[in-house]
C-alpha cells in the first residue's frame, strides 16, 4: 500500500475511571476511549466508542515535559526535555501508553500524532478539555503520511549508551532514522557507539561532523521545541512540538530546499500565518508568530494547497 494512503492514527484517551464520569467526558467532547479489559460494554452503553486497550502489550512513554535542573551541573544550561520521539524511532510499530499527569495530556496527544504511532493516553481529569481540543485540532489536519526525512542513519545496537545518544540527537533536532544497515542516502551513518563514550559529547561530535549547513531542518528561538520532518520530492511536513509550558513567540524555522507554497496549522492559534517567508541559498525560512504545544507546517515546491 502506498505510504501516502495510510491513515495517520489518532491518539486515544485511556480511561479507567468509574462509569459515573461519563458526563465529564461528554462535556469535554470525548467520544472515543480506550478502556481496561471488561469495561468496554459499560462504556458503549453510555454511547462511547470504547475499545479494550491492553497496557501490558504497549511500551511505556514518558510524560512529555521540560525539567529545569538548576542545581545540577551539566555540559550546558539547556533544560532537560522528556520526549518520546527517539523511543518511537527505536521501536517502530509498537503501541505506546502514556500516563500523563495534569498539564501534559494535550502535548502527549500531539507527540503521538506527530510520529504517527498508536497511543493510549491516560490524561488527568483536569486536562480533558484541553485534550479534547487537541484531538479536534489533530482530526482537522490532513492525514497524508509522508516518508520520514533525516540526515543521519543510526544502526541501533540496543545498548543503553545508544539509547542516550538517540535521546540527545532528538533533543538537539539532529534528524535521524534507525536503520538496519548503513545507507549512503544519509549524510552520516552511525554505528558502534563506544560503551564508555559520553553520549552528549558523541551527539555534539555527530553534529560537528555533519555540519549545520547540511541539516535538513534548523530552528532558532527556542531550545524547548523538537521537530520531526517528513516529505518527498514535492512536499515537506514539519511537525513542531513545544515541550515548554509557555507559548513560543517568533520561532524561526529553516528547511533545506526551496518551497514556494506554505500552510500553517498551529494549535490554539487558528488562522495564524507564517511570517517573514524567505527562499534563499537553497533553503526556506519562515517565522511562526506564536505557537503552543504543537504546530504543523506544510510546504510544497510548486502546486498550491
Amino acid at each position: 500500500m502506498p505510504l501516502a494512503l495510510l491513515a495517520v492514527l489518532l491518539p486515544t484517551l485511556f480511561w479507567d475511571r468509574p462509569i459515573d464520569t461519563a458526563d465529564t467526558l461528554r462535556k469535554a467532547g470525548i467520544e472515543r476511549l480506550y478502556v481496561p479489559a471488561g469495561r468496554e460494554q459499560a462504556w458503549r452503553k453510555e454511547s462511547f466508542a470504547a475499545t479494550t486497550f491492553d497496557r501490558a502489550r504497549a511500551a511505556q512513554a514518558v510524560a512529555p515535559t521540560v525539567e529545569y535542573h538548576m542545581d545540577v551541573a551539566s555540559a550546558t544550561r539547556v533544560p532537560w526535555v522528556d520526549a518520546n520521539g527517539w523511543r518511537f524511532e527505536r521501536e517502530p510499530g509498537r503501541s505506546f501508553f502514556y500516563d500523563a499527569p495534569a498539564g501534559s495530556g494535550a502535548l502527549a496527544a500531539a507527540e503521538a500524532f506527530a510520529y504517527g504511532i498508536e497511543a493510549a493516553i491516560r490524561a488527568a481529569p483536569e486536562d480533558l478539555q484541553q485534550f479534547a481540543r487537541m484531538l479536534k485540532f489533530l482530526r482537522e489536519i490532513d492525514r497524508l503520511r509522508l516518508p520520514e526525512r533525516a540526515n543521519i542513519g543510526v544502526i541501533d545496537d540496543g545498548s543503553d549508551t545508544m539509547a542516550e545518544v538517540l535521546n540527545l540527537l532528538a533533543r538537539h533536532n539532529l534528524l535521524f532514522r534507525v536503520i538496519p544497515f548503513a545507507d549512503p542516502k544519509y549524510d552520516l551513518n552511525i554505528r558502534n557507539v563506544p560503551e564508555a563514550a559520553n553520549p552528549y559529547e558523541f551527539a555534539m561530535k555527530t553534529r560537528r561532523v555533519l555540519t549545520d549547513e547540511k541539516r535538513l531542518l534548523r530552528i532558532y528561538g527556542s531550545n524547548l521545541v523538537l521537530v520531526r520532518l517528513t516529505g518527498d520530492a514535492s512536499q515537506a511536513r514539519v511537525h513542531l512540538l513545544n515541550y515548554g509550558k509557555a507559548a513560543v513567540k517568533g520561532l524561526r524555522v529553516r528547511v533545506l530546499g526551496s518551497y514556494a507554497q506554505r500552510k500553517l496549522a498551529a494549535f490554539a492559534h487558528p488562522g495564524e500565518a507564517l511570517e517573514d517567508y524567505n527562499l534563499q541559498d537553497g533553503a526556506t525560512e519562515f517565522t511562526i508568530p506564536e505557537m503552543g504545544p504543537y504546530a504543523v507546517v506544510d510546504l510544497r515546491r510548486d502546486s498550491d494547497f
Partner: protein
Amino acid sequence: MAAAAPAALAADDRKVPKYRVVSHYQPATQPGMPGPYPGQAASVHAEKCIDESTEKPDPAVVREMVARGMRALTGDADVRDAWARFITPADVVGIKVNCSGAPGIMASPVVVAEIVRNLMAVGVKPDSIWIYERFEEQIETVHYDRYVPEGVHIWTAETSRGSKESYDPATYVETTFFDEEDTRSNMIRLVGSRFTKIVNVPNMKDHGASGVTGCLKNIAYGNFSNVARSHSGSVTNTYSFIGTLAAVEPLRSRTVLQVMDGLRGVWHGGPFSPSRKFRFYPKRMLFGTDPVAIDRLLLDIIDDKRKAEHAVSVWDRSAKYLGAPGDHQNNPSVNEFVREPGHIQYAGRLGLGVYELDKIKVANIEV
C-alpha cells in the same frame, strides 16, 4: 586614572570564533560609530548631581551637565545647535537605555528625560522617540513614563524572556560558542525598520564577563537576541562578540551619540546591583560619538575604584580568583568568569573607535 593597561590587554592570541554576519543594510557615508568625533569625549563632573544618601538626581544639575557636555563635544555655543548636529526633526530616535541593574542602577530617568527634552527642542515629536530595552521586567521597575511627555514610547523587545518576535529574522550574527542549538543572535527589528538614529545611554558598571559594561556592551548585547549563550562555565566570548555585534549595520551607522550616565556606578557584581554594597557615585557623565574611547576611559574609572577597594583588577585573568557560581556576588576578589576587558580594544580594531589612551582627547568640565 591608570596610565596604561597591563600587557594581558593585547590578547592577540585569544581564540576568536567564526562569525557570519547577515545584514542587507548598507553603512551610512559616515557611520554613527565612531562618528564625527573619534578619539574624543567630554567628561562632565558635578558634585551635586546626585544625593548619595537618597540616590536622587538633581534635574537642574543634570540639565547643566548635559548642556555643558554637548557644547564641549561639538564646540557649539548653543546646546540646541549641538544636538542638531546629530538629530533632525524628521528623525525617529531610539534611546537605548540600560536597565539590567534596575532598580539599583539604570539609565537614570532624569538623564533620559533631559535627553528627550533636547530631542524635542530640536523638533523631534514625542511619538518619534522610543526609550527601549530588551527585557520588560527590567524596564518596568524604572517608570520612565513618569518623567517624559505623553506620546514617548517605552518599549521592550522581550515581553516574555526568549521570545524572538521583535527581532529581525534577516539581520543577525551566526556563530556557535558552546554547541548551543540556536546559533543566531538577531538584531531588534525596530533598529532597521523604524529608528533613523539611536542615542546610547549606558551606565558606569563593572561586568563579571566583559570586565566593564559601557557603550559597547549596551549597544551590542542590548540590541541582539540570544547573547547570554556567549558565557559558559568560567569562559566568556565577550572579547570578540561585543564588537562584532556593535559593528553590524544598521546599528553601527544609526547610533550617533553616546551619553554615559555615571551619576551612579557599580564597581563589582555588575551588571546587576541588588544592594548598595558595590555601588559608588562617580557623579560624572561622558559624551561622545566614539564608544571605544569612552569605554577606554570607563575601564580606568572602574579599575581605579576596584583598586581603592582592594578588589582584584578587571585585568586579572588568573584562575585563582574564579569562584563558585554566586560567590562573586559577595566577594569583590572573586570572579565569575575570566573577564574580557580586551573587548574594547578588539572593537577598536573593528574600526568602532580609538582605543589608545594617548590618542584620546578628553575635555574635562566641572559643574
